[in-house]
């Protein structure tokens, strides 16, 4: 493996930015945002430089590593803080720093009226650094550090406007649900260490062949729990909708493009574990399939533009998870969808932010309408992202999503048919809710509040949107041209022995997918464009809509199954603690106290009675000795 000594700059630059802004305090208010943006951009520059170096090396020499320092060294157990940059991590590095830099630029304008803009940029830089550590760590333990770092940054940024109690609660909810996933990751690391004695990616990969399938399945399932927590996958998906409480650039960067894809990264990075544990792999597929439908269904009923996009994110990550669960053939497609999704979803979120910027931070789409004329650039960039997520050729989503649908059908048998149909229906529902978002926001009649004065955003905001829109258009073609990404990742995900002919011709799959998308678009068109849309959500809706509006009861379920019993358990434990443990301690004190008060009666202050007691005592003592001796 190639030894590099420049990898650390990728992380060190944004980390230094965060440190300077946080420690520098108000002194950095004036230029803090510029520094943070420069740090992120230079990190992107280092990433490009690393990519160039990598391309210069022969395939087997491409992964580069750097040892930072000896971290843990206890007996046989040795973990170095080391970085590993291979074909997989470089994709993430460029996505994180690239999209991250664009969003830094966007935020300069978006957050310009916020008095805490410096703190915002410090957190953004902290996030970039943690996320890079996550994808660059060369062992599960190093990854874990970054994993927790992004969790912290996410928490801080969701609750950035924590003066609103609902936002503070949302950040806490995200943090707590992420902790459940983190627990899975720590269990996975512990099991890996117990069975294999190593936690580095290389070490685990070497040990897989000598490890029992049961242990591998356990590791795989625990990694899946971790992935589900971070990527908002079923059953730990409930936090993502509320995470939209954060400023919109945060939703774009962390809760759409990068952090929420960390779960997919974890699964693809651990491909050697999942390949050897078919059961865990099957569960991954099931989780992905459930989540993609779950998110899509929630998306159909949301009137909050950001929550609709969040549901869509959940659904799209479901696609990625599903692809990642399909084994070696799917990993590359999962990553491809992740990259294209990073472009078009970040672009759409920034578009949503731009709309909110012009509409007094209104998020209810029923209060939008006819914004096309007032925000032409936002409309075009959002529209390109829309076409990309729908999977219309030649936009990005067409390449990545179709490949996933094809791979799902190729899984063969009943599994293939179920997964294929699920992904197709998902695509159709995606088309429906995204068309709904488009129609409600940009076309139709004005349904604004009276004080709304929609206007196009400044160039600092639309420039990143435009660049991301270009990515939404071209990234799919560029990544799939001549199987570019697949070949690039080939050394990591060797699937030559699993290669099989497509069960259904790709052109037929594309045809089916486009038909389903067309149906979804048509339904949305007739429902929202041909009919008047009311500016308040109608109440006389079917039970399905009501359930979908409430996020398919995910919060109620969590509340009934986990929160209430948890509360009951803690109440019981508190009562037991007070009665038994505290009771014993207090009981001892009480006995001492009451016997003390009883004996206190003897202290009557009369010297003569003391003397009498001494006398009686002395006599009693003598009598006792007498009895004992004789």
């Amino acid at each position, binding site marked *: 493996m190639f030894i590099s000594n420049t990898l650390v700059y990728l992380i060190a630059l944004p980390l230094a930015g965060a440190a300077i802004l946080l420690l520098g305090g108000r002194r950095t208010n004036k230029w803090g945002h510029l520094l943070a943006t420069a740090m992120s951009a230079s990190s992107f520059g280092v990433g490009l430089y690393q990519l160039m170096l990598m391309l210069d090396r022969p395939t087997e020499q491409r992964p580069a590593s750097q040892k930072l320092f000896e971290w843990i060294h206890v007996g046989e157990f040795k973990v170095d803080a080391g970085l590993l940059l291979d074909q997989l991590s470089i994709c993430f590095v460029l996505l994180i720093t690239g999209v991250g830099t664009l969003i830094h630029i966007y935020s300069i304008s978006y957050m310009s009226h916020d008095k805490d803009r410096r703190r915002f940029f410090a957190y953004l830089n902290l996030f970039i650094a943690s996320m890079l550590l996550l994808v660059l760590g060369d062992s599960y333990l190093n990854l874990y550090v970054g994993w927790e770092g992004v969790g912290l940054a996410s928490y801080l940024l969701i609750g950035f406007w924590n003066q609103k109690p609902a936002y503070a609660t949302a950040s806490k909810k995200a943090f707590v649900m992420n902790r459940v996933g983190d627990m899975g990751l720590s269990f996975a690391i512990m099991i890996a260490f117990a069975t294999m004695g190593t936690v580095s990616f290389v070490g685990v990969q070497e040990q897989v062949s000598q490890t029992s399938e049961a242990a591998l399945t356990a590791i795989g399932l625990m990694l899946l729990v971790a992935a589900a927590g971070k990527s908002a996958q079923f059953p730990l998906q409930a936090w993502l909708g509320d995470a939209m409480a954060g400023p919109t650039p945060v939703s774009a960067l962390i809760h759409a493009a990068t952090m929420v894809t960390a779960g997919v990264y974890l699964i693809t990075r651990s491909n050697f574990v999942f390949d050897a544990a078919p059961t865990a792999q099957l569960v991954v597929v099931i989780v992905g399939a459930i989540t993609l439908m779950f998110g899509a269904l929630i998306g159909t009923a949301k009137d909050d533009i950001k929550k609709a996009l969040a549901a869509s994110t959940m659904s799209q990550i479901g696609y990625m998870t599903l692809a990642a669960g399909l084994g070696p053939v799917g990993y590359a497609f999962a990553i491809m969808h992740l990259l294209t999704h990073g472009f078009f979803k970040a672009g759409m979120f920034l578009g949503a932010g731009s709309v909110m910027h012009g509409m007094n931070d209104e998020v209810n789409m029923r209060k939008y309408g006819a914004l096309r004329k007032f925000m032409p650039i936002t409309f075009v960039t959002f529209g390109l992202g829309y076409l990309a997520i729908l999977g219309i050729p030649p936009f990005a989503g067409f390449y990545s999503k179709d490949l996933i649908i094809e791979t799902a059908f190729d899984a063969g048998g009943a599994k293939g048919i179920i997964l294929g149909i699920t992904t197709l229906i998902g695509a159709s529902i995606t088309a429906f809710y995204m068309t709904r978002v488009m129609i409600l926001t940009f076309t139709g009649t004005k349904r604004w509040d009276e004080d709304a004065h929609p206007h196009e955003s400044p160039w600092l905001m639309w420039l990143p949107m435009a660049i991301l829109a270009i990515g939404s258009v071209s990234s799919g073609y560029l990544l799939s041209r001549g199987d570019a990404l697949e070949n690039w990742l080939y050394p990591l995900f060797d699937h030559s022995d699993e290669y099989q002919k497509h069960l259904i011709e790709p052109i037929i799959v594309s045809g089916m997918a486009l038909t389903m998308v067309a149906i979804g678009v048509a339904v949305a068109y007739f429902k929202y464009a041909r009919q008047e849309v009311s500016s308040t959500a109608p109440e006389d809706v079917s039970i399905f809509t009501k359930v979908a509006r409430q996020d398919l009861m995910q919060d109620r379920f969590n509340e009934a199954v986990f929160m209430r019993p948890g509360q009951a358990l803690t109440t019981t434990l508190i009562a037991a603690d007070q009665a038994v443990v505290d009771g014993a301690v207090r009981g001892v004190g009480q006995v001492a106290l009451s016997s003390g008060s009883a004996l206190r*009666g003897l202290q009557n*202050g009369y010297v*003569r009675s003391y003397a009498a007691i001494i006398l009686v005592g002395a006599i009693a003592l003598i009598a006792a000795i007498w009895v004992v001796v004789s």
Partner: protein
Amino acid sequence: MDASNYLYISALLFTIGAVGVVVRRNAIVVFMCIELMLNAANLSLVTFSRINGDLDGQVMAFFTMVVAACEVVVGLAIIVAIYRSRRSASVDDASLLKR
């Protein structure tokens, strides 16, 4: 003469002293009763010294006298101080230490 008679007298004196301490209220009298008890003890010590034919008991008696002398000095001073501040030499009046 039988040495045990001295012991009887000693026991008698001690009992008188003890009863006096318990029943009398006047601090001076209580004090004298304490002296009586000390001297009863001294008498016993000297008698045992006589019975055993060695000087241990007599040495102990001297010790007792020295301690008793010190005690008289301190005790009388306390009694005088109490009398000055409270105009009473009754031990029952000096009962502020009760609960």
